């Protein structure tokens, strides 16, 4: 333990110094986010003391439905995301604070010089819950099931560039169409849970190598687990049993937490977070993430095919007010490119775009556009999207731009409005790497290119950066790409939203993971219960 760490631990214990205050002051002192985050977590862990084993952990989670399915390939709700993390493992995990690839069922890996062939050593002596030993065969079959052409796996898209998956003795060999320095991170995807026989026989069995065995599951209602005594890791799975209850009503979650019926709830509404804070025994868990709320324009559809109009609309956005009003301060301003400092190789020093009615007016005049601009929105786009649209309408009005809002039904929004209509609101979750974020939504050929940003030079840069193993060169390329999207793209990105969860104060050891919400889904395997 270093001295500053000791000092900080002391402050956490004595003053209840919270994460938010600490991060603000240490980042002001010039620390990087990852370093500050990791330091705070270390100190908080020290303040939490040694993990205590035992007890029954109860979670009340939003996002489950009767239509959910256990097959990890088809997992898409918040609930199944966290549920599968309990019983299953992926080959690789991402580090909670800096997002780098760390070993899990694959204990090490290496790549060819051009990063197009990768070899993974699979861990020995790991047992599935049914007693079967984990073999290379299970791994290969799992990946085949997710990459097969007929697959309905949610990971199908990110594994597109894989040409071959095969066993080489005890090792796994993956070949790609082109070099990809980030391949290990792709294998952290939550769909890619390693199952016995690859889940080909019964994908819904819920049998894996994770810290908890699935005892019962009632879709859209509840799941229960007991500790896996044969777990191959000793640094997780501290409680004896876990119970996850689907609670889709925000008020019900808050009531369950404040009456002590559950230890942890997800998705606390920023509007009510300050009321919840007052409850004794409740702790608010705020984690910076990569998810972001966006206003997207199609660059190939009039009037948005004019960059001056796009710039006018970007300058008409009052980002600080958005974060304050829509997120109640639980978030950070965005800069019109989809990457923030939680990503490796984040391009520093790009000037923050601010609300500037004069510049907006200037570009709007220059664009020659006349009349109103139609923005489509719905609250399914992101929580508070309709309010955000109205707020945007107000700030744009001051710049002389008339935005007309059309409120669309939430039902069918993703199939009829998003990625179809030229100007709408939406959200994006984070991706493990910059490459993946850009490949998913900014590559010309991407299915989800929801800004119709189609630039040959950008595509070329993206593919070059993907295979570049020299980090300094790579960082430079990512900077150029960020600038292209920021200054010429159809993306207006007012804010990155924090994950806001809450727990009973008895719950200790919570890890703030930048990867995804609910401690990247690992909440149940990382926490313990005091007293």
């Amino acid at each position, binding site marked *: 333990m270093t001295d500053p760490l000791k000092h900080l631990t002391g402050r956490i214990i004595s003053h209840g110094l919270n994460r938010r205050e600490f991060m603000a002051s240490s980042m002001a002192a010039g620390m990087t986010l990852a370093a500050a985050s990791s330091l705070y977590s270390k100190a908080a862990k020290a303040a939490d003391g040694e993990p205590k084993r035992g007890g029954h952990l109860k979670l*009340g989670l939003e996002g489950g*439905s*009767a*239509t*959910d*399915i256990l097959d990890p390939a088809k997992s*898409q709700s918040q609930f199944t995301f966290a549920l599968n993390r309990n019983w299953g493992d992926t080959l690789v995990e991402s580090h909670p604070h800096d997002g780098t690839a760390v070993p899990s069922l694959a204990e090490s890996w290496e790549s060819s010089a051009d990063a197009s062939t990768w070899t993974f050593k699979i861990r020995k002596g790991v047992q599935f819950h049914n007693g079967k030993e984990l073999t290379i065969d299970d791994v290969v079959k799992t990946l085949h099931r997710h990459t097969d*052409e*007929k*697959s*309905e796996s*949610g990971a*199908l*898209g990110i594994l597109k560039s894989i040409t071959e998956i095969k066993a080489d003795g005890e090792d796994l060999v993956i070949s790609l169409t082109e070099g990809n320095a980030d391949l290990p991170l792709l294998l952290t995807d939550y769909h890619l849970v390693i199952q016995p026989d690859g889940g080909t026989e019964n994908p*819904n069995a819920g049998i894996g190598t994770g810290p908890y065995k699935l005892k*019962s599951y*009632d*879709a*859209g*209602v*509840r799941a229960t687990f007991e500790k896996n005594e044969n777990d191959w890791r000793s640094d997780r799975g501290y409680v004896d049993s876990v119970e996850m*209850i*689907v*609670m*889709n*009503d925000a*008020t*019900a979650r808050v*009531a*369950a937490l*404040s*009456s*002590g*019926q559950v230890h942890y709830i997800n998705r606390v509404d920023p509007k009510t977070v300050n009321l919840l804070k007052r409850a004794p025994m409740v702790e608010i868990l705020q984690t910076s993430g990569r998810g972001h709320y966006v206003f997207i324009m199609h660059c190939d559809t009039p009037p948005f095919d004019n960059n001056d109009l796009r710039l006018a609309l970007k300058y008409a956005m009052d980002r600080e007010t958005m974060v304050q009003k829509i997120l109640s301060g639980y978030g950070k301003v965005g800069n019109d490119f989809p990457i923030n400092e939680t990503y490796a190789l984040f391009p520093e020093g790009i000037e923050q775009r601010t609300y500037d009615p004069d510049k907006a007016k200037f570009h709007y005049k220059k664009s020659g556009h006349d009349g109103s601009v139609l923005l489509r929105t719905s609250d399914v786009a992101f929580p508070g999207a309709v309010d955000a649209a109205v707020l945007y309408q107000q700030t744009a009005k001051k710049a002389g731009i008339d935005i007309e809002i059309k409120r669309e*039904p939430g*039902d*069918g929004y*993703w*199939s*009829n409005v*998003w990625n179809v209509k030229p100007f709408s609101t*939406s959200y994006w979750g984070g991706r493990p790497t910059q490459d993946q974020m850009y490949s998913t939504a900014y590559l010309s050929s991407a*299915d*989800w290119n929801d800004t119709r940003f189609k630039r040959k030079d950008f595509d070329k840069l993206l593919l070059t950066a993907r295979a570049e193993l020299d980090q300094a060169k790579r960082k430079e390329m990512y900077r150029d790409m960020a600038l292209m999207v920021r200054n010429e793209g159809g993306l207006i990105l007012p804010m990155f939203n924090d994950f806001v969860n809450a727990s009973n104060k008895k719950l200790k050891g919570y890890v703030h993971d930048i990867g995804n919400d609910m401690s990247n889904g690992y909440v149940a395997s990382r926490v313990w219960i005091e007293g």
Partner: protein
Amino acid sequence: MNTVMEDGEPRRRPLKQRYPLTVLILQRLGLSAGLLLAVSILIFGGVEALPGDFAQTYLGQSATPQAVANIRAQLGLERPITTRYFEWLGNAVQGDFGKSWASGNSVSEQIGKRLGNSLFLAFCAAIISVPLAVGLGMLAVHFRNRIPDRIINIISLAAISLPEFFIGYLLILFFSVKFGVASFPATVYDGMSFGERLSAIALPTATLVLVVLAHMMRMTRAAIISVMSSAYMETAELKGLGAFKTIIKHAAPNAIAPIVNVVALNLAYLVVGVVVVEVVFVYPGMGQYMVDAVTVRDMPVVQACGLIFAAVYILLNMVADLIAIVANPKLRHPR
């Protein structure tokens, strides 16, 4: 339904006059079957008309053209609507409601569990609220326009005016958050003892009782008052019959019909209309199940739920009409 006129014997009276109730029930059952068929067509068409098909909505924002095509091919969604409807109908009349498109589980099995939960909650709410409502209604009539009647009226009006989710939240706030005497959430699951189940559903039951009580009570009061003020009651009184006898013999049979009708409506609501209460109390009933299914256009589940809901309504209304007929001498012996 040609069972009625099969009888060719001219000397005998038609069946309809000899067994009026049996014939009526058979007629109603035939009508119900027709209604259910119409309902199934309506639901199927309605879900089809919703924007986005199952493949798109199920995959949501993460739908790729390839994945959508795979799901459509697997479920045969590209076939014409009539083909798909008749295929479903063919299986349904044999009692096979198929598998949920989303989860792949047997619909009948899932519904069995959920319907059990819904009926259990509805039953508990009904055995408390129906006698209470009728009793309070009578009480209100007895003390008509005096203090107890006023109090009952004010409270029932307040209960009617408050939305059910708000009543639910208030109960949660006081009984589980503040005093910690009631259990929350009301999630029930396999392997719970009967006592645990009862304690789990205490709060949602109380909410439902408050919601339906007022309506039934006011109807009871109004029905009895309207009968009391009719001419034949006055006659009975002038004939010198005792107050007790007049009510039992003359008033009650005529008041039963409207009361039973409103009770039936509220009972149907307890099974079909309690989605909000289910969500607030995290209770795994039918309503939540159907809403989840509609959200992703899971047709087999939506159809099965819709039919069950329709059947509940039809059945309860039929029972209400029969009770009204049996209770009311004027209807029992139609001229």
